[in-house]
């Protein structure tokens, strides 16, 4: 139970960063924390007490760690890499155009 709470706490910390911070890169860091909180939670969901790696053949009666979340977390990390690269690129281009990273000064769009 505790790992669910900690994972969601980390998620909320990231969300706080996204909502409250004013610097573009701090917002990005908040997003990354959010992403990684979910990944961590996912990896922990697959954890089994005294489990071993699920690759040995012919070991009956042993507890295996659930391998599915590990594979999926890897996929999710790759997706996270793509989004992070894209958003960092956007932030850099915004910096080129506006000359600032402060989100309060970047508002050509209203609403």
């Amino acid at each position, binding site marked *: 139970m505790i790992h669910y709470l900690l994972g969601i706490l980390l998620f909320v910390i990231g969300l706080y960063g996204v909502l409250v911070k004013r610097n573009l890169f701090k917002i990005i860091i908040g997003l990354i924390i959010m992403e990684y909180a979910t990944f961590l939670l996912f990896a922990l969901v697959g954890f089994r007490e005294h489990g071993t790696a699920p690759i040995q053949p012919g070991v009956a009666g042993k507890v295996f760690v659930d391998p599915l979340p590990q594979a999926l977390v890897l996929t999710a990390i790759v997706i996270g890499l793509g989004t992070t690269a894209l958003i*960092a690129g956007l932030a850099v281009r915004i910096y080129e155009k506006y000359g600032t990273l402060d989100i309060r000064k970047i508002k050509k769009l209203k609403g």
Partner: protein
Amino acid sequence: MQNNTQNTSSGMSLIVKTVARILAGMIMLYGIYIVAHGHLTPGGGFAGGVIIAGSFILLYLAYGATAADSDKRKWYASLCESLGIFGFWIVAILGLVFGTYFLFNIFAKGTPFHLFSAGIIPVCNVAIGVEVAGALVGIFITFAAVKLLERK
């Protein structure tokens, strides 16, 4: 980047350059090792691809942003990326073409725990490795170019 071993004008100091020059090949070898053994040991296409990209990025870091900033390099990186993922796509639809399922394991599976085993998985790993290496090098070159622009 090719022959300017005496050129100290850009990039890091001579020590870093020399070490990067010698080690880049070995890093790439290790990356390929990870990719090729993706179905036997931890790692695989993505992890190995990142290491392969690391070998190039190490060189670019050592020799400075000017070495990396070139349209030709960017094009090669993007070509690697596209061809790698296209190779994966080809492998994936081979299953469809031969009348079974998309991503069906059409190759012989071989003996477990040998290098040539597991059917299409090593092939897919190689394709992913090429793709990831190209993509990461491309991302790095793009960001390096942006930094240059700012300095001007």
